[in-house]
């Protein structure tokens, strides 16, 4: 930590897009964490339907009479949590598969990477749709589908990193000390490929938010009466257009700004951590 914070400070100081991205991400995260304690209503309070924006309802109410502003604030929490769960699943699953493939090598590597290649060549959103179809149209399955579909990218990147690191002297040293393979992998190899994983994880948050919202928009997200995420708020507004146009605009804007934040930050981190793409 003592090294990370000054580095982060210096990085954000000279990389303006990443600074903007960080601010956006922090803003949304703060909304998600403390916002729900600061709003006047509960997301389940019912008022008059389609009330106009005003002092009582900052963004008006929706077709069910829910306060849109309140739902958007609570939605920040569900949206981020859902995306974080899906992305973590991609990260853990993909990194494990990629690390093992790169570390073991040989036929295992060849086979695993062929599967990854095939999975990546197929349109990921369609793959997620079919996965949801097989598992059933439920929110949990949407998360699983988005998580699964994101995994191959991590696998490919982590494998490349492992191959790069595995021939380094310190890994040779650890191996020649007779340490068990899993220990060498997890203690010596993986921590040294952390940079690209963080980059992919940041960018992965953005695509997870977009994919979940997209699947919800198609009606594959199951129960529409739960505490909504932004994709669902947008969809509900879309289904009641033109009365709920404001709702669609606001929910879409929130998704856009959040994804933009993660993408700006992720691209910045990539510039900084990957010497090949460092800015000229």
């Amino acid at each position: 930590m003592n090294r990370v914070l000054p580095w982060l400070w210096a990085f954000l100081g000279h990389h303006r897009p990443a600074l903007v991205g960080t601010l956006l991400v922090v803003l949304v995260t703060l909304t998600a964490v403390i916002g729900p304690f600061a709003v006047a209503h509960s997301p389940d309070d019912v008022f008059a339907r389609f009330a106009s924006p005003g002092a009582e309802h900052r963004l008006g109410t929706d077709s069910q009479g829910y306060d849109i502003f309140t739902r958007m604030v609570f939605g920040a929490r569900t949206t981020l949590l859902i995306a974080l769960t899906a992305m973590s699943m991609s990260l853990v699953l993909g990194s494990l598969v990629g690390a093992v493939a790169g570390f073991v090598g040989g036929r295992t590597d060849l086979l695993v990477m062929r599967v990854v290649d095939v999975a990546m060549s197929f349109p990921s959103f369609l793959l997620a749709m079919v996965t949801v179809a097989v598992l059933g149209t439920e929110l949990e399955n949407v998360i699983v589908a988005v998580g699964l579909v994101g995994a191959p990218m991590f696998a490919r990147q982590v494998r490349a990193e492992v191959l790069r690191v595995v021939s380094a002297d310190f890994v040779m040293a650890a191996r020649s000390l007779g340490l068990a393979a899993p220990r060498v992998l997890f203690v010596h190899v993986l921590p040294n490929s952390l940079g690209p994983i963080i980059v992919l994880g940041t960018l992965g948050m953005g695509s997870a938010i977009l994919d979940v919202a997209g699947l919800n928009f198609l009606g594959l997200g199951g129960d529409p009466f739960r505490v909504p995420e932004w994709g669902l708020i947008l969809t509900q507004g879309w289904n009641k257009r033109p009365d709920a146009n404001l709702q669609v605009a606001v929910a879409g804007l929130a998704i856009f700004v959040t994804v933009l934040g993660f993408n700006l930050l992720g691209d910045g981190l990539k510039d900084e951590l990957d010497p090949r793409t460092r800015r000229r």
Partner: protein
Amino acid sequence: MFAYIVRRLGLSVLLLVVAMLATFLLHHALPGDPAAAVLGKQYTAESAHEIRERLGLNDPLPEQFVRYVGDVMRGDLGRSHVSNELVTEELERVLPATIELGVAALILATIVGIGLGVLTAVRPRSWWDVAGLTAALAGVSLPIFWLGFLALQAFGEGGTLATMTGLHGLPLGGRFSPAAYKLSQWVADTPGATGFLLFDTLFVARDPEVFWHVAKHLLLPAVVLASVPMAVIARITRASMGEALLQDYVRTARAKGLPPRRVVLKHALRNAAIPIATSIGTQLGYLLGGAVLTETIFQWPGMGTYVVQAILNLDVKPLQACVLVIAVGFVFVNLVVDVSYAFLDPRVGTPGGGS
């Protein structure tokens, strides 16, 4: 080179078998009992068993798979149990709609994306560059269905911009207005009609008025669908052009007094072409995923809306067929791309030159 192409063909055949196996297993992985779906309310254990027997669902799996492959080879993709129509006939209707939309979007994305990328690469850190990069980043961060909504609000019939300028505005959805022209019927009745409406109206019917009508319907969906691939192509073009412009041969070309336009377009862009071509190839995947959402917003009667309906209704045969069609399309496109690399870049496929 010949050996490479043969090897590549072999891989494609293998991938096709995998795709068949996957779609076959999809049938068994989907929730719901096909017999129950057929019988509906008249469900009894006996008749369900009878139906399973008739559908061959009680046979061993390998036997069923062989039969499935045989059916597909003969062009029999089964029937939708919702509409009770042949899936091949439904595909014949929806596929041209999606291909037309996708191709229009891809052409748009390629032209605008490369243009934007070249423009930003030529003047790095200028106002152009910042604007281009911002647009490219916004493009990959936008929820495409929200972009569609905004486009409709601004340019659609009764939209803000349409009202402000006093223009009529663009159609809100569909491939044509059924009230004005009965095009579906016309396509079905006219020999030589392909279902690609732009082509049909221009070359088969030769009616510019209907062509314009169809083109107006295509415009907004194509622009919306093109947004993400355009942004990606622009970013890749900027990166690879930026690199190419720093090379010695560009300096040489400049030094010998060639006009700047020629240096950029002929010397630099040509050498930056391979990564750009690759990115266009990979964008096909995004295009198909995005097409599902775009078609839903614009009520475009294509494969995207068809797939979504199949999933929501747990309609096995159409879903199976769509996945298979997409997989076959992908195997084919990847094959064409890889083989064309072998022609473009002589190092590909030779020993020591990568695979």
